[in-house]
């Protein structure tokens, strides 16, 4: 039932199928029902060597303090990164707004293209295209129509240049669902 909501793209569906086939035993129900038979709180209290007593000093009735270790453990969240690129902590951004797309092309080497989108992808009523900031010599730049002055003249779309981190992004209603496109590094 929920399948279509979380797993949306074909690639995610492929990953999901692969994930299920290789790690079926991650699903607690499939681990011989061990997690169902054990009381986690009781096992946890025993593991932490803690006991809860009532006012008269009797351990509270319903906790049996199981000594058996619970078969699951918490894994800290992590992401993976490429050590060859090194981790970079970005500085406090210094933002300059560039309203003329022509200046973005000349000074930074980026152009704005207009990409048609399907009704299922649009995020506001009547939307037909989305704007993307791309490098002027990239494949996308040759494939899609470039937009120079259309929206910029109305002041609806502009570029944000972060001089502290040397990156740029497009801001505006059609730039992204959150009102801005992703940050692009100028040096890349």
């Amino acid at each position, binding site marked *: 039932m*929920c*399948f279509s*909501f*979380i*797993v949306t793209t074909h690639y995610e569906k492929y*990953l*999901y199928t692969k*994930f*299920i086939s290789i*790690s079926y035993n*991650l*699903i*607690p*129900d499939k681990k011989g029902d061990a*997690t*169902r038979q054990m*009381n*986690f*709180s*009781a096992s946890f*209290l025993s593991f*932490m060597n*803690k*006991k*809860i*007593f*009532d*006012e*008269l*000093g009797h351990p*509270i*009735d*319903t*906790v049996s303090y199981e000594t058996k270790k619970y078969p*699951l*453990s*918490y*894994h*800290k*969240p*992590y*992401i*993976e*990164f*490429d*050590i*060859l*690129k090194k*981790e*970079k*902590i*970005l500085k*406090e951004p210094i933002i300059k707004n560039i309203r003329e797309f022509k200046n973005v092309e000349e000074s930074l080497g980026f152009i704005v293209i207009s990409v048609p989108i399907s009704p299922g992808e649009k*995020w*506001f009523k009547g939307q037909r295209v989305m704007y993307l900031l791309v490098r002027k010599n990239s494949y996308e730049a040759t494939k899609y129509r470039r937009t120079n002055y259309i929206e910029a003249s109305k002041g609806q779309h502009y570029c944000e240049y972060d001089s502290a981190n040397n990156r740029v992004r497009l801001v505006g*209603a059609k730039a992204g*669902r*959150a*009102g801005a496109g*992703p940050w692009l590094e100028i040096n890349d």
Partner: protein
Amino acid sequence: MAIIQDVNRISEHRRIIESMAKGMGKSFLPPGESGIKRKYLEHVPFMSTDDGTVICIPKLPEMGGIALIGQTGTGKTLAAGYILDNLYYLWKDYIAVLNDSQDETFTWSEPCDNPEFIFRQNYFHQTPMPLPMIYLLPNSDSFEINEEVIKDKNTVKISIPFEAVMNNIENFIPDLGNSERYLLAKKDELLNVESEAELFQVIDTLDSGSKGMLEVKNKIEKSFRNLLNEGILNLSNITVPSYLKVGEYHGNPFTAVMKAECIPSFITSDLYTQKHKDAIMSYYINELFEESKGGAMKGTRTWLYFDELTKVVHADPQFTSPQSEKALNNVASRGRNNGISLIYATQRYGEIPKTIRDQTKFVIAFRHKNADETKSIQDDFGVEKTVRNNILTLRKFECVALTTEYFICYKDNDVWEDKGPFIGKIIPSLHKNKFLSELKK
């Protein structure tokens, strides 16, 4: 010393190979070496955007409130569950669930069993994990719970201490009027009683024979009988404790359970039908605040979680519980400095009292029904009209993250602080969710 020299030599060797590889634009590494390394997250992740940016709630010295808002069935509880899982296990903070009105925390002590959610949790390489829940049931004559549900759960029935009733007599017996001062004159004697019979003996002494005192005595006696009959007050039943003990600590059941490194969940499904709901709820909130302020938590932050907060407090005075609202306003405004914060879910953000909204620093907004409901979000977080409109078209498990502080963002090898807003998909809780389990059946 030799080991240090070896390590230095290996690091130098590696640095040279890495710089050569980088120069050639290759991902070349010595045999057996992996170019992919793990970066453990110190901040609490809760969503990822379409372009792969990971958004985290930063660990600040003074945390404000966190709100999860949106229509029912859009993923609020799942997202709140995941945040709570990580607040508990990653930051090792204390958590108290103060209004489980739909008995949904009973499944929190079991691991998530939905394959699709497990797949999504794998985004941060996490696996299902339950929470150590201890369920606190209010002592009440009308309390009914499915025995089948609680048979393998750790439940404790708790009652309000007599001292707390006497100290807040105007909340527990609001219609006493002028009779209250006669009752308070006997407060010291009343606090020493050990049984119901002794209580009524002291109340009998109120009738001094002078005019009108018989009515006063009868009124007070009737009020106390009601409290005893409803199970709010407990003087003789030792199986329903008012205090619990863990190690050196002896006091409030919520604090005691948290000191045992567990999570107390107050089952309030029955409480909402009771007239004493406000007095009971405000008593526990105030107690937790006072204990946190007094240093009982020893520097560990406490999160008070409320699902459907509008059932406890409401911007409209007609629907609010005044004492609970006062207590929560206190937590919201003074809690930041005293190590106690709120995390709540609600369908209507605009109906949350302004004091609580003002102290809410992070909002995770799910789909809303109409534009009016998003107006207060726009007012409080100054979002653009586009974003406000996008809140109305979000899909299930999609949300907009807003803040008055900043989020920590990770993408590839970059880490930065950003105010957002961000749109993305949530990560579901590591524990089991009641409603989705029911759907599966």
